[in-house]
């Protein structure tokens, strides 16, 4: 991982991701705050959770939004047939899909049965005001 990536991950505030690695889907030079809200009822444990890069034009134009990607998880924890279900702005669809494609789950244990139901992940792209002193 790049220095920028390490910085970003160091800045991440992660909730309930004890066993999941968080990685950036793209090399980002900007510090990104990350919050992961996990579904505790899920039978699949994330292994690698890739974080999308905030689209630069959206950041520049101060556009916030969200994108939801749905997919299935195979027995080995790989993500299959990911598709964008909805996106508040087309700019968010591509990074969300890219992040999902780089994510994975823990493989099923021998006593576990694979579920075929599709699961969805929503990425919320928000912009947090920063004090001017912080960037100088």
């Amino acid at each position, binding site marked *: 991982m790049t220095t920028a990536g390490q910085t970003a991950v160091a800045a991440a505030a992660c909730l309930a991701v004890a066993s999941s690695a968080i990685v950036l889907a793209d090399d980002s030079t900007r510090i990104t705050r990350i919050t992961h809200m996990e579904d505790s009822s*899920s039978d699949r444990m994330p292994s690698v959770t890739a974080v999308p890069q905030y689209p630069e034009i959206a950041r520049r*134009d101060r556009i916030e939004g969200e994108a939801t990607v749905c997919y299935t998880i195979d027995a080995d924890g790989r993500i299959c047939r990911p598709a964008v279900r909805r996106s508040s702005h087309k700019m968010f669809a591509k990074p969300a899909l890219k992040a999902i494609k780089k994510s994975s789950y823990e493989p099923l244990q021998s006593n576990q049965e694979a579920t075929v139901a599709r699961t969805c992940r929503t990425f919320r792209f928000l912009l947090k005001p920063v004090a001017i002193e912080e960037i100088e």
Partner: protein
Amino acid sequence: MSGPAAFALALVTTVLLIPVAWSEENKVVIGPRNLDLADGAQELLAGNAREGIELTLRGLQSAQGKREKEAALSNLCAGYIMIDKLDSALMYCNMLLLSNDRHWRGFNNRALIYVMRKEYEKAEKDLAMGQEINPNARTLKVVKGMFLDATHPVSPNIIIDDRKRKNAEVSVKEES
């Protein structure tokens, strides 16, 4: 070159190129009428600011008509921004906007000068004027972004929500 100065290189895409062909009665001239001005614009677009400025200054001396003169002033403003000579850049932008107060490129370039000088109120006014004239101009959006980064900086905050939709909606309502 870094920061706003680096952006100035991109800014020269706002240089005005004079017509490449024109005809007059039976005489057809292929190529620009003011060669210095056209060559100056090409040098600026290639990132060769000093050569571009020199040629454009020569082109300004022989400029014919309002359009050529305004193109020269606009390009000189952009060129001087590229080499970080903001006083000279401001002078040419002011001359341009005195000549034509509907010239969005002039407002764009002058707003950038004000952002670089941290004169944010003036920058905001020029950006508003420019966007009123040409709301879809990409370079105006870029300068507006630089202005916002300087005055209202933000950092990306990405929330990964794996919760089932029903729970997520309840939580969002609670947050708001």
